């Protein structure tokens, strides 16, 4: 199908699709008048049932923990597929194009990467108390490692993120999430049901099994993103420099 024919076919079909979608959107409740029971019941009772203050965190890791398991494994499979696609077929080692020569830049970069790592760990740890959680904090931790790439160059980045370590952490996170669900089955409840002491609301020691699931997902997300960055930066290092 030629390009002109494709675009000519797209215009009326997009108009028809848009009309159908707008017609179906007109059947939704008015913007701001959400009236279903699920959200209202959760807002009213999640804090007293699970002793956590971030209701979204309790939904992600407790009430809909099974959906989060599925999402984590989508992440895992996508990064594994990416690593498989971009694997080194021939034995060429990528040559780093430029080194970071300035000591001040290296020092500042490493200092800021450490600060960013602490920020990421803080966002992970308080995920079920204030906005945050394993997913957001995991990406922040991975970007701390990316800042190390900017500060130390490609060689320093590869030394600080050994492949076996990253693979182990990612597997531990993904498998740990699934195994914690099995642990709750061993205690007689359903898979991924909350177990353990509930603690006091608003403190870090609260929520039963929510902190453990939080840490497992943070490990998996951060290691998966470091692997993603490593694969892409390896591809970048192999591109020949244009004069």
């Amino acid at each position, binding site marked *: 199908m030629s390009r002109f024919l494709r675009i000519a076919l797209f215009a009326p079909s997009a108009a028809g699709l848009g009309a159908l979608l707008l017609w179906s959107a007109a059947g939704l409740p008015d*913007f*701001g008048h959400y009236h279903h029971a699920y959200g209202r019941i959760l807002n009213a009772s999640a804090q007293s049932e699970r002793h956590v203050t*971030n209701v*979204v*965190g309790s939904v992600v890791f407790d009430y809909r923990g099974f959906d989060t398991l599925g999402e984590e494994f989508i992440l895992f499979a996508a990064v594994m597929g990416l690593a498989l696609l971009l694997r080194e077929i021939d034995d060429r080692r990528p040559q780093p194009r430029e080194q970071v020569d300035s000591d001040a830049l290296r020092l500042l970069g490493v200092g800021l990467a450490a600060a960013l790592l602490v920020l990421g760990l803080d*966002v992970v740890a308080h995920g079920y108390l204030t*906005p*945050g*959680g394993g*997913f*957001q904090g995991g*990406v*922040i931790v*991975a*970007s701390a490692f*990316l800042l190390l790439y900017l500060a130390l160059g490609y060689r320093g980045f590869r030394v600080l993120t050994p492949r076996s370590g990253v693979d182990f952490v990612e597997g531990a996170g993904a498998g740990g999430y699934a195994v914690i669900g099995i642990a709750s089955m061993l205690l007689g409840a359903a898979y991924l049901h909350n177990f353990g002491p509930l603690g006091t609301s608003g403190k870090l020691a609260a929520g039963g099994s929510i902190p453990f699931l939080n840490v497992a997902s943070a490990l998996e997300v951060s290691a998966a*993103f470091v692997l*993603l*960055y490593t694969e*892409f*930066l390896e*591809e*970048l290092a192999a*591109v*020949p420099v*244009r004069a």
Partner: protein
Amino acid sequence: MIPLQAALIALVAAGALAVVLTRNLVRLALMSSLYGLVLVVFFLVLQAPDVALSELVVGAVGFPLVILVAAAIERGG
């Protein structure tokens, strides 16, 4: 609907169109990051701080990096 939400709806619509119409790939990386930023403010106005936080970290670091690397390989190889 408060005027802030209406203004942000207009900005998000303009941002989506701008991302689609950008052809240069380096500009596309920055434009998608800017669109992510507008989405962050929109999510905040819709009272969703968790979603805004995840879109912020993803749109600031994740998307521009992968797009820029793909752009460099498309141009250089």
